[in-house]
């Protein structure tokens, strides 16, 4: 399974469950497992917390 944003290989543990958040090791994008049937997994973008910027 590759990261939808940067195409890095995502390591999704076998026991991962629907609703769990998976984070990309390269680009830091977060995804929620929306569907999991055996090896068929679907992800949707998890809402990301706004970045705080100094002045």
């Amino acid at each position: 399974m590759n990261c939808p944003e940067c195409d890095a290989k995502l390591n999704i543990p076998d026991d991962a469950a629907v609703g769990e958040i998976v984070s990309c090791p390269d680009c830091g994008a977060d995804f929620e497992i929306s569907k999991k049937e055996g090896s068929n997994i679907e992800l949707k973008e998890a809402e990301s917390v706004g970045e705080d910027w100094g002045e």
Partner: protein
Amino acid sequence: MKVGVVGASGYVGGETLRLLVNHPDVEITTVTSRQHVGEYLHRVQPSLKGFTDLTFSELDYDKLTDKCDVVFTAVPHGTATEIVKALYDRGIKIIDLSADYRLHNQEAYDKWYGWTHPHPDYLPKSVFGVPELHREEIKKAQLVSCPGCMAVTSTLALAPLIKNDLIDTNHIIVDSKIGSSGAGSGSGTAHAMRAGVIRPYKPAKHRHTGEIEQELSEIAGSKIKVSMSPHAVDVVRGILCTNHTFLKKDMEQKELWKIYREAYGDEKFVRLIRDKKGLYKFPDPKFLVGSNFCDIGFDFDEDNNRLIALSASDNLMKGAAGSAIQNMNVMCGFDEMSGLRYTPLTPV
């Protein structure tokens, strides 16, 4: 003249007080801070020990109106909005150091801050607080909004180039370097992790870009876009903006000196630095920290038809509190250098 400072516990509020306690024309009557009510000012701004025995009071609009002619608001972005409006409605002169009244319309706040301004109808009442560009308007203003530190430093270098239509407005790159005191006292990184960094942050779409574009577009009379990339560097005070531009036609050094002298020759707080000899050849905060100067210089890269406009300032002085005092002097008819005749603290 009596002044008050709302939100005096941060770096910017502290710097404003540092200048006000020594300002010949004013007396500080009120200093507020939510967390430090009742505490002596010098417990929160220790360097002011011996200068004032004021204590922090609560924010009380009636007291402020009664005891102050001018109020400085040095509270974080978002909290200044209501305070400034309340004071404005009471007819007091306000110098706001936050970002809440810098941009002229809601659309700009949507784009650069993703923030819905509660009182957009007050935005046109605010004057952008750069005397070198808006002196006449500031004289008549009741509300002046001090510019962002990188915005004022970059804009001052670029303004004459835009005014004289010298550069390709599709390729204006502002590469800025800024010290740690620019990040606000609350959000500072631990020293061990802040020392030695050269850290790009928001390389694209940084909020200050909105102010630079606003000011340059006004000068040009057309939409100007700017590519800004800020970097945190290992100094406490200081900004250096390297404004990379591309010339529309070849230019002589002499012409450019003329253009910058026309723009800033009579200005007290802009020095033109482009020297072949000596220690100080191009603008560098090292030789202006602690003073209200914005030093401007330039260099030509003929091979690439590039003009590098350089500008440096102290992010807490010309980039914040120094501008605030300068704006007050203009608003109140004082000598513009009053309370600002600081020589840079070099070396530091």
